[in-house]
């Protein structure tokens, strides 16, 4: 029978593998796109034309360079966003799992009478309540995530790591919701770790991309260890 430690290990391994997959997808797809640019640079006789039969858009000598660079930009932005979401998903899953083993931690909370009437059994009521509680935690994530890790698992996130995660999440938000351009909300979320000023485009250089990827991986590993230690206390 699986223990909470086994399940935490499973969550951790799945998240770490997904992060590797995201990085591989970025690196390998980018190389394919770059090879195309290099071919056109080194072999002037190399010509090709690709037509998207749905949009009728043609990729040929006239637009291949700019399109390729744009696709690399978008690929980096999209996979960076996936990385951050991977961490958020891991965080939620850990709490979901933790409460499913320790539902007594939510003992002081109230359950809607409607939920009781609709549930086939007690386990279902507990499962749904945990789910609702964890979704609620996700909404206040940016303010409470450090204190939640501290209070539940005695896991302290250093100021440096917290600033790095907050900045990465703010970068994700800017790329997802503001076309990559810095706004006041980004500055409010990142404080001293802001990388650009309002109105600037928020680049995602590869060193920054890799640093964030490594940081998220190490944080997931450390949180998993902390949760497992907490279980044995």
């Amino acid at each position: 029978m699986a223990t909470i430690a086994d399940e935490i290990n499973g969550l951790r391994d799945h998240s770490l593998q997904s992060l590797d997959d995201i990085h591989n997808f970025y690196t390998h797809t980018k190389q394919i796109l770059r090879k195309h640019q290099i071919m056109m640079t080194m072999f002037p006789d190399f010509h090709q034309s690709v037509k998207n039969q749905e949009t009728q858009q043609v990729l040929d000598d006239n637009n291949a360079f700019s399109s390729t660079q744009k696709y690399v930009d978008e690929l980096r932005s999209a996979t960076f966003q996936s990385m951050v979401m991977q961490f958020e998903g891991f965080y939620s899953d850990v709490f979901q799992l933790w409460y499913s083993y320790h539902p007594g931690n939510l003992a002081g909370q109230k359950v809607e009478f409607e939920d009781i009437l609709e549930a086939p059994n007690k386990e279902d009521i507990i499962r749904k309540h945990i789910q609702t509680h964890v979704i609620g935690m996700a909404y206040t994530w940016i303010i409470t995530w450090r204190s939640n890790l501290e209070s539940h698992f005695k896991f302290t996130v250093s100021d440096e790591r917290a600033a790095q995660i907050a900045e990465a999440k703010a970068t994700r938000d800017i790329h997802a919701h503001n076309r990559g351009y810095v706004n006041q909300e980004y500055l409010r979320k990142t404080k001293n770790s802001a990388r650009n000023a309002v109105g600037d485009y928020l680049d995602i250089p590869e060193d920054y991309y890799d640093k964030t990827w490594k940081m998220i991986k190490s944080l997931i590993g450390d949180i998993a260890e902390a949760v497992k230690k907490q279980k044995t206390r």
Partner: protein
Amino acid sequence: MIDPATKKQLAVSADGDASPYIIVSLDVLKELEKILKDGNIRYWVDHEAISINQKPYLAVVNLSRNEDPKAVQQLIDRAA
């Protein structure tokens, strides 16, 4: 500045809303980086260089979208 690998002038490409970039051989990459650093230009180099059919390795130097591509081109031309 002429890149001996391509025998072409180093050119800043800036089309549409893609970030500006320069394709450069490893032979002149260090020289180009020095020019960019001295000019306080924000940039990064792709982590891989690519060679096709035993031709020289080429790398892509990405410029920040906040940089002015024309100004960077002038900087490179002046340095040459």
